[in-house]
């Protein structure tokens, strides 16, 4: 219970008055002559008037009436029985921020959210303007500021939950921007959500709302948060001389289950059940299910992993993916002789069965064919020099869009890299640096962490690189247009990149064997080598599945469509391209659409099927696994983060912090003071009746 005028409660101290009156009983202090007060005066004075409450019923009635009157004047109102009314004396601009992310599909959350929104709108004053913003990982204002309730309610009724993830910060930012230009004197955000903790990242939030913007949150999550999901599926290839086998690993996660439970996990390939495994779901935790390798014919096919477990959010129990067998790319590794200096490198690039590369190790000095067309990239490892013929071959090779990587070592002579090869090299090699008694070993001083080569190491730590000592390297001067991706601590380039024609040339000024560093012994060696090559050949890994909300190039929907779009052959657009979405909807893309936007948004979980010239292709999309984790972040935590930016916030769980106008509206809606006053009046009537009876008795006495 809250009070509109809580200061009136101090008047409750007035109950002392009737108590004192009943103790003193002034109305009965009649003068009575008595023969002598000799004995009375001998008593302690305070004992003369040792009080005893009389007429307790009368006293109770009087105190009760007084308290009720005090309560009535304090104008109480309840806040938990009714929702906060939105009434004001000033005009308001409200943003109804309605969460329609995938997690809102859990049980009846979204219906509750819409009901809450409709209630909010129904209590609006006439001049209040409202904008409805639905948000998930994107935010969308459904209307411009409107005062017409019916229209707004229709809009709200039409909102459907999406399959996308949640981003609270973005939604609040949009709401704040909308309120900045809103007409109302009072600006409020009414935020209805399940407050999923994955929608809020403490570290990323630089959220600052304008001063005066009030935020009120409405939590519709309820208490049942148990959910299980297939959070990830990984498909790997196991190549052998005879065949290529596929291996599927699935990660099954449970979030807040009430108890551990058994569940089945099915693997289906092309709508056929292939394998089935049993797992035991922990209440909170995840486990990996590894299916047996299986043979798969070349080409594109679809698969799905389904968790047979009943929960209120069944859509995330299925994970769709696409299987595509791709040919391994051939790499030419050139070295001097067949020494072991290329052992680590060749094993890193082609040693594992699931490697996308096949390495062809050749001696640069032997009389080999200069036809490099079978190769995607050439690696020149630790050779003394490059002959002009090789140099021109390399130039032609790279210019066509292929990659070349020069790797240094003990054998490299700066003199051998002069002349024609300098057109291919991203830098001019000047000298060799070798550590000795007077020259210390060097460490990596700087890495361009956002570069594709190094970005994948973000998840681990760059200290693997930075703790590696380099005892030798080639000193070089990068060409104009070249980009230094890593430097040693003395500033010397370690990895330099330069575009050559359509291709890329990379120079690693130290060795990738044990000559000048021990990188081959580090766990990052293999991924680093592969990243180098992938970058040089512009290798694009096509994921087995995307997340709902991802925006992909049209070429991803169907490679043939991509090729046609890149070729810009206008005759290819004589027909409409149809995309069948997971739930059966057909999206037709005409020529204009294709020219206008070459991207497509995956907004449903499942398989997107596209057929171009009899070439059928699928793209799988799944709900973001973050949406399966329904654990909540306390709205107050988010609100307190916002509050740091001097924003007035309040949570629906703390309605007492409502504005004065809202409190006034609350109170006006309930009129509790009226009932209290009436009750006080009734009590006073009873009191009068009883008091008269007592008075009569007294007079008769």
């Amino acid at each position: 219970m809250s009070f509109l005028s809580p200061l009136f409660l101090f008047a409750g101290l007035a109950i002392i008055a009737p108590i004192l009156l009943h103790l003193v009983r002034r109305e009965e202090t009649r003068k009575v002559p008595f023969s002598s007060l000799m004995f009375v005066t001998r008593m302690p004075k305070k004992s003369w008037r040792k009080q005893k409450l009389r007429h307790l019923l009368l006293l109770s009635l009087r105190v009760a009436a007084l308290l009720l009157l005090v309560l009535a004047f304090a104008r109480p109102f309840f806040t938990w029985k009714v929702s906060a009314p939105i009434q004001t004396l000033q005009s308001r601009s409200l943003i109804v921020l309605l969460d329609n992310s995938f997690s809102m599909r859990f049980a009846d959350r979204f219906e509750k959210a819409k009901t809450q929104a409709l209630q909010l709108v129904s209590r609006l004053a006439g001049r209040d303007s409202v904008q409805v913003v639905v948000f998930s990982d994107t935010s969308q204002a459904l209307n411009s500021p409107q005062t017409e309730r019916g229209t707004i309610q229709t809009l709200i009724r039409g909102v459907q939950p999406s399959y996308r993830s949640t981003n609270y910060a973005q939604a609040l930012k949009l709401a704040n921007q909308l309120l900045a230009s809103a007409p109302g004197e009072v600006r409020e955000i009414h935020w209805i959500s399940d407050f999923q903790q994955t929608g809020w990242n403490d570290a990323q939030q630089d959220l600052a709302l304008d001063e005066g913007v009030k935020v009120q949150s409405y939590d519709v999550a309820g208490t049942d948060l148990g959910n299980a999901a297939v959070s990830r599926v990984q498909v790997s290839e196991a190549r052998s001389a005879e065949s290529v086998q596929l291996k599927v690993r699935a990660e099954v996660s449970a979030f807040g289950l009430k108890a551990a439970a058994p569940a089945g996990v099915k693997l289906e390939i092309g709508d056929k059940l292939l394998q089935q495994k049993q797992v035991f779901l922990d209440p909170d935790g995840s486990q990996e299910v590894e299916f047996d390798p299986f043979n798969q014919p070349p080409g594109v096919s679809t698969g799905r992993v389904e968790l047979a477990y009943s929960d209120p959010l069944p859509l995330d129990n299925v994970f769709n993916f696409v299987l595509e067998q791709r040919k391994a790319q051939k790499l030419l590794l050139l070295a001097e002789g067949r020494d072991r200096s290329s052992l680590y490198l060749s094993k890193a690039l082609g040693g594992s069965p699931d490697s996308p590369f096949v390495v062809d190790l050749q001696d640069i000095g032997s009389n080999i064919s200069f036809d490099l067309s079978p190769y995607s990239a050439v690696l020149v490892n630790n050779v003394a020099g490059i002959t002009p013929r090789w140099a021109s071959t390399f130039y032609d090779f790279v210019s066509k869009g292929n990659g070349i990587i020069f790797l240094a070592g003990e054998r490299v002579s700066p003199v051998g890299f002069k002349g024609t090869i300098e057109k291919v090299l991203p830098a001019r090699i000047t000298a060799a640096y070798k550590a000795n008694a007077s020259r210390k070993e060097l460490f990596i001083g700087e890495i361009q962490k956002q570069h594709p080569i190094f970005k994948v190491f973000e998840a681990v730590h760059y200290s693997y690189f930075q703790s590696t000592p380099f005892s030798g390297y080639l000193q070089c001067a990068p060409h104009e247009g070249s980009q230094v991706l890593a430097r040693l601590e003395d500033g010397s380039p370690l990895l330099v990149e330069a575009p050559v024609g359509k291709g890329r040339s990379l120079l690693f000024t130290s060795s990738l064997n044990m000559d000048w560093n021990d990188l081959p012994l580090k766990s990052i060696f293999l991924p680093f080598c592969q990243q180098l090559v992938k970058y040089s050949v512009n290798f694009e890994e096509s994921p087995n599945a995307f997340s709902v909300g991802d925006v992909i190039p049209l070429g991803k929907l169907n490679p043939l469509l991509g090729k046609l779009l890149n070729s810009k052959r206008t005759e290819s657009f004589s027909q409409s391209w149809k995309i069948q979405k997971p739930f059966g909807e057909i999206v037709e893309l005409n020529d204009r659409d294709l020219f206008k936007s070459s991207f497509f948004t995956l907004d449903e979980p499942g398989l997107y099927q596209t057929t171009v010239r009899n070439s059928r292709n699928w793209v799988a999309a799944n709900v973001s696994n973050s949406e399966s984790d329904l654990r909540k972040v306390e709205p107050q935590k988010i609100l307190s983060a916002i509050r740091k930016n001097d924003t007035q916030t309040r949570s629906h769980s703390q309605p007492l912090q409502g504005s004065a106008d809202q409190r006034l509206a609350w109170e006006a809606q309930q009129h509790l003071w009226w009932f209290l006053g009436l009750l006080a009046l009734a009590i006073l009537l009873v009191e009068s009746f009883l008091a008269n009876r007592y008075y009569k008795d007294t007079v008769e006495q």
Partner: protein
Amino acid sequence: MKTSSSPTRFLDPAILSRLGSLELIARTVVEGFVSGLHQSPYLGFSVDFAEYRQYMPGDDIRRIDWKVFARSDRCYVKEYEGETNTNVYLLLDVSGSMGYQSASVSKIEYASYLAACLAYFAQRQKDNVGLVTFDDHLVDKLPARCRLGHLNSLLHLLDKVRPTAKTEFGRPLQALAETLRRKGIVVLISDLYAPPEDVVQSLRHFRFKGNDLVVFHILDPQERNFEFSRSLRMEDMETKRQIVMVPEAVRENYLRLLNGHIETLKKECGVLGADYLLLDTSRPLDYALYSYLYTRHKSM
């Protein structure tokens, strides 16, 4: 207080009929008795002249010695020795507290009835009976006489008493004791609202002169029980001091102090050789006299 024009209103025949079967027996028989069992300090009737005394209002004018008046132009009456068997002195407290009344009879009325009865009774015994009213000083004094008209004078004096002032035993009773020349029975009728030691000290003067002492302690039932209810502003009838009190809170202490006071008086009177009798105005007067005479009879 009830008032009446008839001075004989105190002599209720019903009371007297009850008293007729009892005899007032003086404890001390030193001076003999006449027709009663009590002894007069002087034997037999006497017509021996004792002294002249100045005429005082209330004296029978027939007792004026006209010869002396003729010679001196002053009124003197003759006092005779052995005029009666014994002297009974009724000391009546007429202080303000005696005016208290919670029932049909106030304490002063009750005390007046009692005094009248005793006077009448003594008259029948041919004893001299005198009356002294006092509060904080001597108010009226009627010498002890036994003549027929004396009773009327006494009753008249009783009829006009009006309780007003404070109670004080020391000064007025000491002064009275100084004036008593003959031993007799001193009857104190009072509510005794004074420290017991003051009361006893005052009586000690009479006892010292050989008087027999009888103390009637007159209390109103309300004084004895203190059954007031509800908060009230109580006013002392003597000092006019007012105290707001809650009687329920005071009652217990009050009764304890009152009973202590009574017990002290009873004990001190016993030590002094005085008879103490507590009388309640709610009780019949004849019962009170009967109880007293019965007590006296037993003590003989």
